[in-house]
């Protein structure tokens, strides 16, 4: 198994002096390609910060992040944007979708950034929406969908760019337990079918049970790393 995500003494601090907060404190982590990993821990443990640093959404205070062997923590902003576009899919906790675009247009958006032809975008978007069970919702805007449906569209969008890694930051936080479980099962299904590496954060124990690997964070450090 090849290592697809590697963090080396990764730290992120906010503030200075007496008011400095160590959101992450020297985290070393390796995740293999194709893994389905849950980052767990209480609120404020650094789950979101870790995912943001892995995804290049934030710069570390110290340490490095390597994705597919590339040192993303040292990339220029433009190159990092392009790297995210082509290799990383994101599913955020809430407000994932662009409100003025339909479900289909939201899925196509990432492919638009990749300059794919219109016909290809359209065909792929409809295909992916069908695979998440939302082909009939293609022309609806986010406000016309339930929370669970919106998250499914977010999964579809994340997959549309054919990424190597999908990072999901508490994707089930605003969903009821059944809908949340269904979403995790969907992500697991895609993980097993396509081999895309999934890393998601959660503090829901029922969701944790579905992950193959659990990395527990406490106060910005890894306290446990369990393969289930």
């Amino acid at each position: 198994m090849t290592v697809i995500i590697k963090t080396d003494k990764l730290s992120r601090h906010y503030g200075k002096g007496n008011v400095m907060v160590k959101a992450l404190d020297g985290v070393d982590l390796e995740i293999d390609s194709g893994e389905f990993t849950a980052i767990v821990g209480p609120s404020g443990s650094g789950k979101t910060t870790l995912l943001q640093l892995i995804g290049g959404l934030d710069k570390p205070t110290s340490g490095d992040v390597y994705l597919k062997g590339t040192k993303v923590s040292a990339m220029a902003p433009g190159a990092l944007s392009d790297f995210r576009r082509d290799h990383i899919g994101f599913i955020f906790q809430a407000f994932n979708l662009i409100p003025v675009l339909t479900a289909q247009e939201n899925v196509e958006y990432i492919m638009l950034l990749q300059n794919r032809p219109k016909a290809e975008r359209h065909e792929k978007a409809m295909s992916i929406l069908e695979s998440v069970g939302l082909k009939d919702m293609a022309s609806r805007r986010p406000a016309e969908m339930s929370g669970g449906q919106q998250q499914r569209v977010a999964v579809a969008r994340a997959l549309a760019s054919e990424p190597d890694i999908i990072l999901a930051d508490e994707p089930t936080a605003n969903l009821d337990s059944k809908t949340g479980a269904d979403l995790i099962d969907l992500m697991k299904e895609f993980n097993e079918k396509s081999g895309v590496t999934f890393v998601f954060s959660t503090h829901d124990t029922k969701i944790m049970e579905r992950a193959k690997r659990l990395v527990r964070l406490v106060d910005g450090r890894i306290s446990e790393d369990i393969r289930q």
Partner: protein
Amino acid sequence: MGSNTKLALRNIFRNKRRTFLTCLLVGSGLAIMMFVDGLMLGMKDMMISKVTSTWLGEAEIHAPQFRRDMDAAFSVVGADEVVRRAEQVPGVEAVAPRTLVTGMISSSGNATGGAIFGIDPQREQNVSRINEALTAGHMITANARQDILIGYKMADLLDVEIGDRIVLTATEPLSGEIAQSLYFVSGFLRFNDRAMDSSTAFISYAAGQKLLAMPGAAQEIAISIHPSADQDVVVANLKESFAGENVELLGWWELAPDVASILAMQEFGLWIMAVILFILVSLGLINTMFMSIFERHYEFGVMLGLGTRSSKLFSLICWEGALIGVFGALLGLGMGGLANSWSARYGILFGKGTSEFAGLTLSEPVFNQFSVTQFTSLPAFVVVLTVLACIIPAIHAARLTPSSAMRRAI
């Protein structure tokens, strides 16, 4: 439609009320500028008409040294031939020769100094408003020997009625001898111009030449230009026709430079006002755009996270501004067009009927005019300014990092 344009169009209609109010702000600015431009054009037209058609004409021919001291000795020799040649120039509507001398105008009750014009009434009625200015009595005829018209204020000063005697005293320019002639008041004139109404008298062209003992000469040849002709072009053609000859040909703007200066200042003032007005509009627009951006911080964070470049976010905000500018301009064109139409039809009367501006009496309503500028330069200026106003908010959006944008929104 490009992806950014589509996204921008949908974004600005997220909050329809706010977008409408913003477009109304932009449009109102444009409408005000259109109205003021129309008003300035109407006022300019009226002032030029007042200056030229009251008495001056759109151009005049003199002997080169005449205007320095208004010395009647410097006259246009062979005036009839000059008149005939001037009439041949395309765009010239009418030509009227005049004698002119400064002299004493006396009645049995009083005396005053003034300008004594010798006019050809047939020609003069096509160049100036002398016929319309007649308020009492009758117009002099071409060969009238003793008829005189005077301004109504001069009539008051001299205490004369129709038919009363007036004696004109002037110096014959060539001999230097004093010439006196007796006339009878045939009518009063009211030009609504202080100088004309109080200091001018009019006799026939023939009588004027006889008074000055200068047969065939005129001190002034006034020219009116056809309304549809370009004044600058016609005056240039007239100057070319008489180039190298012993005459001076001047356009009205050279004859009345103070009025020309005021009109030029008005135009400059209009653009100053436009800049100030649109700075104020821009401040409102910047505030609106910032509000809109702050509401979408998280969304921008998601877009950046997905791989949207900062430059694309920058251009998105600028596109939103441009679309607001376009819609605002369309609204403004409608409002400004209506306002100008109303004023073009009904006019605006300043000062309850009579007011003075730059030495001219404005007794008529000002009618707004449409111009190409109102429908091209001004709206384009609005759209460009709207985009410029969005640059600061756009830079703010482009400088967001995904994590900070999502954090600020929580």
